[in-house]
């Protein structure tokens, strides 16, 4: 309790401090005309009142250190600012507290998990640590978990905080991102970043195939217009492979993930129905998707039957950055990894690599991409420990166009704030600028507690299709059967 009061006091202090600063700044600023006599008087008086309040609060404040723990994950190392930004925020906060003469310091402790820790392990650790009372105060996770976390009391709703501090920064967040953090009418998290998943292609391979520079630059537009479809992609990859220009045609991620749903979306699939809150299974789209994967491996020979069991370096990054594969279904952050790891220089990247949406399945359909915003949540433990207020304050501070751009630029993730787009660092990044349009074509993963089951079943079936364990029709029947028997009512089956 004492802790909680302390925190509230320190927040109040800050806000008051900020207001005083603002007032003083307002007063000192040169103006064309002096304010009216009465208004100045009122402002001066308000200023005095605030000063008195601050002093009163300062006297009540017990000196000490408030510790806030933060868990974050890459798993790509360049995303380290997901954690580092909190250190920056804490430094800012501490200098303000010092300016105000408050004898309180904020200490951020945290972990940033990189591979081999994968999402699954990271989440395991959170749930288990939560039970043991050792979970952090701020927990970064994928937005799709909010349903489960909220249902089981792992996180607290943030509506009250957001309402109160909306004008500080939150009004600036892209409205669609708020949709991703809502569950049952409440907001449970603050978006941290978002991204698009481009289909990368090697320009140099296309050049070698005899494409003109103009044709190459047209490709993303052709994909955007739906003219260039997923089967065109297979044909092109096969052509390059047959010509001996590449060893592999198309690469996709090698472990479980959500990227595969883009192909389903490209074939006209839908993931969820916002009106009923249920997940959606579009029969025709899945049938076509499974057939496409089968054809890619066994008809066109452009995806390796063991792609799902591959190694991130050997079967994903390296073949593409070394020009031994034509297409790579990746994410914006992969560009960040290639640059950070020194696999490519910026120049090499722009010279040899192009990026487009994931093509539509058929000419009548639309190209797609998928976004998976990561979000900061405040845990129930933070509330128990009485640091929820400070935790929220820190989240507010890292939700800043400049600070967030440290992260988005280094790791090639997309902006979450409108004003971030005009941040100097962010603006300078050509790639982030180029892919921004993709967000118009994006879909989020459903915020459904059973989403993980849907994803796991799809992953298993796709894996079985690629390895040849299941033929496309058998795979489709199995998929439908498993979805129905495991998820039952949670999913709507559409033709």
């Amino acid at each position, binding site marked *: 309790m004492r802790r909680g009061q302390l925190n509230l006091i320190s927040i109040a202090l800050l806000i008051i401090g900020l207001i005083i600063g603002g007032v003083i700044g307002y007063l000192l600023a040169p103006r064309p005309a002096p304010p009216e006599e009465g208004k100045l008087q009122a402002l001066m008086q308000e200023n005095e009142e605030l000063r008195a309040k601050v002093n009163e609060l300062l006297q009540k404040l017990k000196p000490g250190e408030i510790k806030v723990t933060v868990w974050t994950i890459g798993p790509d*190392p360049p995303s380290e600012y997901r954690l580092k930004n909190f250190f920056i925020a804490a430094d800012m906060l501490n200098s303000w507290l010092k300016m105000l003469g408050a004898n309180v310091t904020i200490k951020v402790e945290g972990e940033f998990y990189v*591979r081999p820790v994968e999402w699954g392990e990271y989440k395991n650790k959170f749930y288990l640590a939560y039970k043991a009372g050792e979970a952090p105060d701020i927990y970064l996770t994928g937005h799709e978990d909010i349903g489960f976390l909220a249902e089981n009391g792992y996180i607290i709703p943030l509506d009250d905080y957001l309402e109160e501090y909306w004008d500080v920064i939150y009004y600036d967040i892209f409205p669609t991102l708020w949709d991703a953090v809502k569950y049952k009418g409440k907001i449970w998290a603050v978006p941290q970043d978002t991204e698009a998943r481009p289909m990368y292609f090697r320009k140099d391979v296309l050049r070698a195939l005899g494409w003109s520079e103009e044709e190459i630059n047209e490709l993303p537009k052709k994909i955007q217009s739906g003219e260039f479809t997923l089967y065109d992609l297979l044909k092109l990859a096969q052509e390059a492979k047959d010509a001996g220009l590449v060893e592999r045609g198309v690469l996709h991620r090698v472990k479980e993930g959500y990227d595969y749903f883009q192909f389903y979306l490209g074939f006209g699939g839908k993931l969820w129905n916002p009106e009923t809150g249920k997940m959606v299974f579009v029969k025709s789209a899945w049938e076509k998707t499974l057939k496409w994967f089968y054809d890619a491996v066994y008809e066109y020979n452009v995806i390796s039957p063991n792609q799902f069991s591959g*190694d991130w370096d050997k079967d994903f990054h390296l073949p593409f950055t070394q020009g031994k594969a034509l297409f790579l279904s990746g994410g914006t952050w992969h560009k960040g990894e290639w640059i950070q790891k020194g696999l490519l220089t910026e120049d090499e990247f722009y010279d040899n690599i192009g990026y487009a949406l994931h093509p539509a399945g058929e000419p009548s359909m639309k190209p797609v991409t998928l976004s998976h915003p990561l979000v900061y949540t405040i845990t129930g433990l933070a509330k128990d420990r009485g640091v929820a207020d400070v935790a929220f304050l820190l989240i507010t501070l890292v939700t800043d166009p400049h600070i967030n751009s440290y992260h988005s630029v280094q790791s090639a993730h997309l902006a979450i704030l409108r004003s971030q787009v005009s941040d100097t660092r962010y603006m300078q990044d050509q790639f982030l600028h180029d892919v921004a349009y993709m967000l118009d074509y994006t879909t989020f993963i459903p915020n459904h507690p059973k989403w993980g089951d849907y994803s796991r079943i799809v992953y298993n079936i796709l894996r079985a299709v690629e390895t040849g364990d299941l033929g496309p029709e058998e795979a489709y029947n199995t998929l439908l059967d498993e979805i129905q028997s495991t998820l039952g009512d949670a999913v709507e089956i559409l033709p």
Partner: protein
Amino acid sequence: MRIVPLLKNSIVYIILLLVTLPIILLYTLLFLQSISVNLNGVIPNGFTLDHWSILSTGNIRVPGTTTQYYPNLYLVASNTFILAVIIAFTEVVLSSLAGYALSRYKFAGRSQILTLTLILHAFPGITLLIALFYVLNALGLYNSLIGVVIVKVALDLPLGIWIMKGFFDGIPWDIEMSALVDGCSRLGAWWRVIMPNVRNGLMAVLIFGFLSGWSEFIYVLTFIASQDYWTFSMFVYALTTGEYSYINPGITATVAIIYMIPVIIFFLFAQKYLLRIQIAGKSTV
């Protein structure tokens, strides 16, 4: 006349050598990897001691990051050592106490306890992972080295108890009796007279416990959340399977060799104990 058996023998030697060769090559590979720039099969391509320079700071950096994300090698080493030592000593103390009681006392339930320990000894504890996790969580021991210690000790104990009971059974009662007659307490007799006589058994349990703790992987993987408590097994696992397999294999090999040091020492100097453990020991495979 003598040629035939000689020939026969050399065929046996050749076959033995052939089937054993993979083991020899694998360990040679590990050693060479740590001191070579590059390996072609088992032929080193240039000699270097660079990989061993991680010993100076103990820091191994993930390429592409500006911060240290793997725990320090020395922290990992001391975690592993602490874990192994606590496991070893706890097992020695508990199994020699229980082994003594089961060997010397006659009491109701003795044969039931003996049977139980025996059955548990053959029982694969690894199948209990989910439940063990539940128990640790309930006791607040999740994400602590102590949690791993306790689980390991509990699962290894039946073996330790049986080894120790065997040794106690081998000591004649007269020795103990004369101590008691001389005025020792029961506890005193156990400590001063009996224990020195079962030194070999204690050594076997100690070495077994140490190696068992030192090598533990699954329980550390499952029950430890924080990198601060990583042991060598997790560290090597991380270096092996990470996406960032950009970690030079030479460095991984160096860490693996450091991890192997106690194993090699026991292998060279304490083989008779190892064999004893092997026979009595329930092996996981």
